[in-house]
Each structure stands twice: as structure tokens, then as C-alpha cells.
């Protein structure tokens, strides 16, 4: 028989360190004392991602959410709530306006996540069209086609919603559709950009895998609005599951008459084909993407003309990325006005971020625009693991920049991020802690853009390589002061004279670390020192003779055998052969291996 109550105690590291174990014991004791141990199950859970307020206790089925619970509070929760059915108000989570919240869904931390794009992900079977339909799927298409909505009505609805492109610069979606609709042409196309390529970003993949019909429906609506009868999904071949789910979904939608000729008995016909990309980052740039669909080498071409006017095979082509499209059925079925209530003045709706790096709860989060970085990192992501200090967060991937602790309370939207020298980008969010070297971070992103440059335009192709070489010299201690001037010159040339967004934004990571971490970068160049101890060319490991007891462990771990010393005698590292892998440092149990 099921229990009457379940008491969930957060067992994440954060909560454990704040005495969750003691609390657990006290709760058990209290249940025993009340004699209701058999009616209540006491459960340890994984992290709820609300570590700042830990330890957390959640009581089901009431879903009461107690925060900051101390072992001494255990008896009261049991006697009051479980036995008498009265919630312990003083422990319930309170928002700043001091309204008391009892249920999880009411707590704004959970409302800080707000699922529009991910509405069906993890809820429906993506390979079963019926489940999508049951969640009001294809309702928007139905409205558009049979509910008397004209293409202009749809554009008006999008305008009211304030939806902006989620892939990069945030161009208003209604305008894009409007441009395409306004052009007279015998053929038009709709393209879904599913060429997600930022390191650490995978929200588009998750949508395609979890809710492929939402993309199909949105593309059909776009086709109806702009006058296109053919759509392409350009998806990278590294996403086999997403492609499979999409194929299944297209097949089902076609069989159900939601794609194909005369959809729902109307004059509107629309088909979708999948085109696979070979995983070139630049193919996420819309003109390069179109070239790739046409079978050409994926290289950007200058805009204007914009693809909405002259795109695929020179025909008007609307290109939206996956996340943008996923919003559209909701906007059409619930109305632009409803959508516009979410988010900030200029940035409406939600944004999905892929939260990774030095973060406890890595994963996909969807938050209303305007949510602060602090909320995302600390309240949703659970903060930095292992008690390390937050150093910076990178948004916008290789096109973005780092944001420091000083700016954690910045509300996230297109404009604010740009002011900080970063961009929204597709939504990668990588958190760094004090062990990360910012020079190394910039070097990582630059290496990515250098490798992913299409090689077409000189500023990006050559400038990126030169910038990388300079950072590499800095990391090895061979850079000179003049290199800062070169970075400035190259950075300007790349920003101003590169052809596409990839090149124009490629210097951002470098420029932003120089701006926000001048001392750290300066230490590499002026003092030949890497403060975070990351840049191998600048660190040395040596053994403190005072602390070494001659256990030989470091010598045995050393992969290149450059640590010498007899048992019970002080060991010495031969600096000439050391590859700075840090094995000895990690191995020594006596703190005798020093890194400097």
C-alpha cells in the first residue's frame, strides 16, 4: 500500500554540506516518535537546484516546499504538517514580496523556468503524432488554414508577439516573414536551420528529438504565410536521433494529411525534406546554409539581398532556426498578446539555454527573457560545484564574450548581452570557476573559429589564425607587449571587414577577456605567469623537500618518468622533461608537489 505522505529531503552536495544528513536523521526520529514511520516514506533526492535555500524538504502529496530547514525543525514538520495537516508557514519558501508560497508550481524559482519551446519535450512520445495532437498540436495550423486567418493576420500576430530570431542577432520574425510574403515569385521556400554548432549548445537537438512535430507545424504555417510549398530542414548529420525523429514525424504528418497536397482539405500544399549538413559551423550562417542545400561549398555571400527576398535557388526563402519555429504554434494558438506578456520590453518570450561547464545542474533551462544570470546559474543551475568560486560565464559560444560576477544581475536579453560585449547567440552558456584561465578560455574559442572559418574572407581566415597565434604565444610566455596592439588591429579588421557573423564576432571572446581580466592576461605577458595555473607553458611543478616523505607515488604516476628519488628520500622533478600534466600534483597526499 502506498504511503500517506512522502517527505523528500534534498541530498545534493549543497544541501548535504548544510546538514541535510542530520536533518534526515531527525526527521526519521520524529516519525518514529509519532509512530507514523510506516505511513510516511522518507526519501533522499538528487539536487533540486535550489541550493542557496538548502536544505530543502518537500512534502508530498501537498507539494509543500520547505527551505532552509534545520535539523531542529524536523519535529515541527512531522508533528504539525504530517500529523495535524498544518503547513509550517515559517519554513515555506517566501518570495521577496513576502507572500507565502506553498506549492512547488507557485514558487517563482520554478516559474523562472517557463516552458514554451520545450513544452512537449520530455512529456510526449516524439514518435507518436497522436500525443502531439493531444497537446494542441496542429491546432495553430488548423486555425491558420481553416479558421479564417489570412497570412497578414499571422504576420500581425507574430508582430504582436514580439518574437525575434533565436539563432543569433534577434531579427524580428514577423519582418522576415513579411519580406518574403511581399515578394512575387513562382516559387518560395521555408528553411529550418538545425545546424546547431556552438560548443556546448544542444537546445535545437533536444527540440527536434523531443518535439519534432512542433517544427513541422511551424514550417507549414510559415509556408502558408509566405506562399511557399516546399520546406527544407537543414540538420547536421551528427544528430542521427534528431534526424530519425524528424523523418518519422514527417512521414506521420504526411500520412495524416497535415503535410502534402491540400492540407485539411484546403488549397494549401506543403512538403518538407531533410538536408544533411556535414557539420561545418559556418553552415549555420544562413547564406552558407543555403549554398550547402544547393550542393555548393558552404560559404557565405554578402547580404543584401537577404534570403527572404532572394534565397534558395534565388527564390524568396524564409529561414528560421529550430527554437524560433518551436515558438510559433504556441503564438498562433494562444495569441501574440499572450506571448508578449512573457519576457522584457524588447525581448519577448523565453530563451532556452544549455547550461554547462562548472555548474552543478547542467542541462537545458528555459527561462523568460529578462531572467538574471544569477537566477540561472545559482537558482536553477545550483551554483558552482565543489565550493569553488564563480569566475565568469560565456554566452553566445565562440561569437560571444565572458560576463563577470559584477554583471550577474543583468537581465538576459539581446540588448543587455550586447552591451556587455557578448551576444545571446543560440544559447550556449558555459560557466567558469576560479580554476579556469581566461586566456585559455579565449584560446579555446578562437581555436574553434579558426578551424571552422570557411576560409573565404581574408580578415577571418588570416586574422583568426594570427589572433590564435598571439594567444598561443601568451600562453607560452613568448608574447610581447606589442601583441596587445596587434590584437586590437586584427580585432577591428575582423569585426569590421569580415563578411559574415562568424568572422565579425570571432574576436569577441579575446577582446572580452582582455577587457574584463586585464590583470590575468597581463600576468601571462608581463610576468610569464598563469594565475589559474592552467597554461602549461607557464607553470612548473616542483617538490617541497620539507614536505616530501619519499613515498614514490609521484614517481610511479609520472607518465614520462622525470621524477627521481629513492624510497623515503626527497624526490626531485627534472624540469627539462616535465610535460606539466599535473599527475604528480594530483597524486601527492602530502601537499609536497607545488605548482607555481
Amino acid at each position, binding site marked *: 500500500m502506498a504511503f500517506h505522505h512522502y517527505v523528500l529531503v534534498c541530498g545534493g552536495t549543497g544541501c548535504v554540506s548544510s546538514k541535510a544528513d542530520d536533518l534526515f536523521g531527525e526527521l526519521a526520529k520524529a516519525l518514529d516518535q509519532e509512530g507514523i514511520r510506516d505511513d510516511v516514506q522518507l526519501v533522499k533526492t538528487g539536487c533540486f537546484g535550489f541550493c542557496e535555500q538548502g536544505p530543502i524538504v518537500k512534502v508530498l502529496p501537498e507539494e509543500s516546499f520547505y527551505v532552509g530547514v534545520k535539523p531542529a525543525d524536523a519535529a515541527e514538520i512531522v508533528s504539525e504538517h504530517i500529523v495535524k495537516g498544518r503547513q509550517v508557514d515559517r519554513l515555506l519558501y517566501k518570495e521577496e514580496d513576502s507572500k507565502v508560497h506553498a506549492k512547488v508550481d507557485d514558487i517563482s524559482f520554478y516559474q523562472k523556468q517557463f*516552458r514554451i519551446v520545450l513544452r512537449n519535450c520530455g512529456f510526449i512520445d516524439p514518435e507518436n503524432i497522436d500525443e502531439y495532437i493531444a497537446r494542441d498540436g496542429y491546432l495553430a495550423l488548423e486555425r491558420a488554414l481553416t479558421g479564417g486567418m489570412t497570412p497578414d493576420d499571422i504576420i500581425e500576430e507574430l508582430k504582436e508577439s514580439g518574437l525575434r530570431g533565436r539563432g543569433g542577432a534577434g531579427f524580428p520574425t514577423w519582418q522576415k516573414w513579411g519580406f518574403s510574403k511581399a515578394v512575387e515569385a513562382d516559387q518560395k521556400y521555408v528553411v529550418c536551420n538545425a545546424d546547431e554548432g556552438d560548443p556546448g549548445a544542444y537546445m535545437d537537438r533536444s527540440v527536434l528529438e523531443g518535439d519534432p512535430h512542433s517544427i513541422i507545424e511551424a514550417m507549414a504555417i510559415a509556408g502558408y504565410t509566405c506562399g511557399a510549398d516546399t520546406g527544407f530542414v537543414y540538420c547536421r548529420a551528427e544528430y542521427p536521433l534528431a534526424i530519425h525523429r524528424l523523418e518519422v514525424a514527417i512521414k506521420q504528418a504526411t500520412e495524416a*494529411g497535415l503535410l502534402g497536397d491540400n492540407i485539411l482539405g484546403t488549397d494549401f500544399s506543403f512538403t518538407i525534406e531533410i538536408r544533411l549538413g556535414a557539420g561545418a559551423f559556418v553552415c549555420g550562417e544562413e547564406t552558407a546554409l543555403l549554398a550547402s542545400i544547393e550542393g555548393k561549398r558552404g560559404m557565405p555571400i554578402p547580404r543584401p539581398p537577404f534570403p527572404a527576398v532572394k534565397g534558395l535557388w534565388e527564390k524568396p526563402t524564409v529561414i528560421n532556426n529550430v527554437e524560433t519555429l518551436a515558438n510559433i504554434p504556441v503564438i498562433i494558438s494562444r495569441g501574440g498578446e499572450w506571448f508578449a506578456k512573457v519576457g522584457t520590453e524588447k525581448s519577448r518570450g523565453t530563451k532556452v539555454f544549455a547550461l554547462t561547464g562548472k555548474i552543478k545542474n547542467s542541462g537545458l533551462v528555459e527561462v523568460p527573457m529578462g531572467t538574471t544570470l544569477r537566477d540561472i546559474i545559482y537558482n536553477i543551475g545550483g551554483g558552482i560545484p565543489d565550493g569553488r568560486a564563480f569566475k565568469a560565464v560565456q554566452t553566445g559560444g565562440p561569437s560571444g564574450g565572458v560576463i563577470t560576477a559584477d554583471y550577474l544581475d543583468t537581465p538576459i536579453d539581446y540588448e543587455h548581452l550586447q552591451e556587455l560585449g557578448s551576444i545571446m547567440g543560440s544559447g550556449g552558456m558555459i560557466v567558469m570557476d576560479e580554476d579556469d584561465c581566461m586566456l585559455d578560455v579565449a584560446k579555446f574559442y578562437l581555436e574553434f573559429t579558426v578551424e571552422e572559418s570557411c576560409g573565404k574572407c581574408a580578415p577571418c581566415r588570416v586574422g583568426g589564425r594570427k589572433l590564435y597565434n598571439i594567444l598561443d604565444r601568451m600562453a607560452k610566455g613568448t608574447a610581447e607587449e606589442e601583441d596587445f596592439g596587434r590584437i586590437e588591429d586584427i580585432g577591428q579588421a575582423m569585426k569590421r571587414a569580415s563578411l559574415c557573423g562568424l568572422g565579425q564576432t570571432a574576436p569577441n571572446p579575446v577582446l572580452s577577456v582582455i577587457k574584463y581580466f586585464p590583470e590575468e592576461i597581463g600576468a601571462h605577458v608581463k610576468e610569464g605567469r598563469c594565475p589559474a595555473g592552467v597554461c602549461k607553458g607557464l607553470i612548473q611543478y616542483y617538490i617541497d623537500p620539507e614536505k616530501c616523505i619519499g613515498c614514490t607515488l609521484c614517481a610511479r604516476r609520472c607518465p614520462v618518468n622525470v621524477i627521481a628519488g629513492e624510497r623515503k628520500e626527497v624526490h626531485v622533478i627534472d624540469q627539462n622533461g616535465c610535460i606539466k600534466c599535473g599527475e604528480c600534483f594530483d597524486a601527492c597526499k602530502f601537499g609536497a608537489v607545488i605548482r607555481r
Partner: protein
Amino acid sequence: MAKMTLDELRKLRESKKKELDLRSPDNKSIHVVVGMGTSGIANGAKKTLQAFVDELSDQGLTNVSVRQVGGMGLDFAEPTVEVAVPEMPTVIYGNVDEEVARKIVRKHILGKQLINEHIYDRPAADIVEGTE
């Protein structure tokens, strides 16, 4: 599926809505929902799914439906599994390997007890519920 008319689409939506609603804890059947996005599968979700199927059949349980969905967003705790048993709170388990999957069948579904250390939480309230 044959091509649908508008009426058929509407009827299907209504009838399926009810079916999906049946997944709420109040109904009588039991649902196991495995997150099968790339991150889930990369962390062994396929084995987890198989373990559920095997264990359910070993235990002779026929009133349990095992389904797959896309990723739930809790990538740090993959594979993730949602379990809905009547008269028990619906919970999401994380880090569900084959052994945990078998434990869930035996302890949660048969024993009506939640499993320690593996409960995580739904990342967000689902906001798109009906459009009216």
C-alpha cells in the same frame, strides 16, 4: 493513418487529450516514461528502457505502460525516468541505470516506495495546458 479531415483532427485531439490525461496520478494504470534524447541515450537510456521491459515481464506486470519521450532537460542526471503510479506522487528519477530501473519496478511500482537518492524534479511547470 489515412489523411484526416478537419473534423477528424479535432476528434482525434479530444480523444487523445483524454488519454494523455490518464497519465495523471489519479488514474488506475501505471506509466514509466523514459527520456530518450541524445544525452539520455548516451548515458544508457536504451539499456534502462530494456531493463524496465525485462523486469516488468519478469514480475508479470501487465498494467504498466513503458514509453519514450525526448530529453527532459535534466542532463546532469541522465538517464531520467518519470514514474506515475496511482495514489503516489508522480516523480522523476535521475541517474537510472539498469539496476535502478529494476529497483524502481520492485520498490516503487510493486512496493509503493520512492527510491532514495534518485528523485530529481521536473525542471519547470508545464505552461501550455489547453488554449482556451
